[in-house]
């Protein structure tokens, strides 16, 4: 049998008769009621504090939000992606497939690097929007944008190919919603005694650029632009 501590219910008189506390509660809800009724007659889309009237009235999305992917171009309109496949390797959901190739003759100036991605597919249905692809990208080509309305009727439409990813970028640029450039994060110098030393070649990758996330500074920059 289960042992249960004996609980003595000690109620004050006000608690005992129900009505006092219920009346207090009624007063509280009434206060909210009056406040919100007044608020709902105010002009403007977002008057009642909690609710965003979604399609018309949108929340401000953080510039570092992890939404739909896009493939960035540089200022000259060149594709930044070199098709290295780091993102595909970093992806925990295995939703990225990249094919690397060399640009065709005469098209070299369309690409920023010497190589390019022939095809680039992201299965949005598998994606968990963790942002690891973005962090692993050495050229800052693949970023997660601010678009969060990704629903579609056809599963095939949810596999984003290269064209769609670049189109995402163009749209974001026209709306002024580009991701701020990554800010290097201050990294503490390793102590002299390093236990994790493994092989020499792995140490190379661990410089400050590993991060892509915009910090405090970039966030304020973004706001200034908008």
């Amino acid at each position, binding site marked *: 049998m289960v042992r249960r501590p004996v609980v003595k219910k000690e109620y004050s008189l006000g608690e005992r008769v129900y009505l006092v506390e219920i009346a207090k509660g*009624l007063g509280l*809800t009434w206060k909210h*009621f009056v406040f*919100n*009724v007044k608020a709902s007659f105010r002009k403007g889309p977002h008057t*009642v504090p*909690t*609710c965003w009237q979604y399609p018309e009235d949108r929340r401000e999305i953080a510039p570092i939000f992890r939404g739909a992917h896009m493939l960035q171009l540089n200022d000259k309109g060149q594709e930044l992606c070199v098709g290295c496949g780091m993102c595909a390797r970093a992806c925990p959901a295995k939703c990225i497939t990249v094919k690397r190739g060399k640009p065709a003759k005469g098209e070299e100036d369309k690409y920023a690097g010497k190589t390019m991605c022939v095809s680039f597919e992201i299965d949005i249905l598998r994606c968990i929007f963790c942002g690891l692809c973005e962090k692993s990208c050495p050229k800052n080509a693949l970023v997660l944008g601010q678009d969060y309305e990704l629903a579609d009727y056809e599963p095939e439409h949810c596999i984003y190919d290269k064209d769609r990813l670049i189109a995402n970028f163009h749209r974001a640029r026209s709306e002024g919603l580009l991701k701020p450039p990554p800010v290097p994060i201050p990294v503490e110098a390793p102590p002299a005694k390093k236990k994790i030393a493994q092989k020499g070649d792995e140490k190379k990758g661990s410089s400050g650029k590993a991060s892509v996330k915009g910090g405090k500074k970039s966030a304020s920059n973004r706001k200034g632009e908008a």
Partner: protein
Amino acid sequence: MADWQIDLIKVVFIWTWALLIAVVMTWVERRASAMMQDRVGPNRAGPFGLLQPLADGIKLFTKEDIIPKRARKILFILGPPLFAIPAFSTYAVVPFGDKIVIGGKEIILQVSDVNIGFLYILALSAIAVYGMVIGGWASNSKYSILGGLRATAQLISYEIPMGLALLTIVLLYGTFSLREIVLQQQGTFLGVLPNWGFFKQPLGFIIFLVAAYAEANRVPFDLPECESELVTGYHTEYGSMRLGLYLFGEYVNLGTLAAVTVSLFFGGWGLPYIDMSKFLGPISYGIASFLVFFVKQAFFLFLFVWVRWTVPRFRYDQLMGLGWKALIPLGLINLFITALLVQLTV
């Protein structure tokens, strides 16, 4: 116009009124609760979302009508109407206004002034429980039957305090007719207070109100449908318009209970301190008395909503405890004292 024609008009009017109240109440419930909870509530259908109940009605009507395979078919179909009809019928004895004089003919604003209006109300509210129990039983689902059982026990237990509270009113006014009671509540007593049942019987009013909440299955007494425990209780298995009838019947019921409360404890159509019939014409007086009644009823309807979104719900045994251990003794004491006072003063 013949009497039966007048009666028919009155019946149609009161039905439309009851329906309208139920329809508007579904909207008020949603919007008011939203406002109390810092939300917005439905505001897309029509201005301020006023057409939302209509949209809900269309949705419920056009939904597929499902009867579970192992349900008792006839009883399953019978349940919702059995619940909704008594709620409508109670309106028959509610005096929703004083009288209106049209073409020299004096029309009483009440469908029928039966001299046992009281018993009629009690009897009909007792019938409503059949709708829940039958619905719960016929669904052949454990949640439904638990809801039905809870409904039976709750409604039967709370009829007693309700009856006791009503009895004090009967003792006070010496009549079973609701119209008579309302008429006797006009004027003032002790010089200051309106001659209302509420001021003469505050304890009786509280007992009646609590019992009314229990009869209407509202939070804090919504155990029969208790969303988080019994899914939705007795109407778990219902869908489409059958469910709609249950939901609708609940709001009609609220309207009835609010109307009864107003008639018994708040002077019905009368305004305190002011005799409207003195400075209003015969037709406008009839309309004004109805409006006064409606405003009072609306307040109690709002109170139902207001309380629902403020308090948590009881547990089954606590509910029974409250009914049997607190309300019934209180009601008996109240009845005894009232009887004594009435005996002494008469």
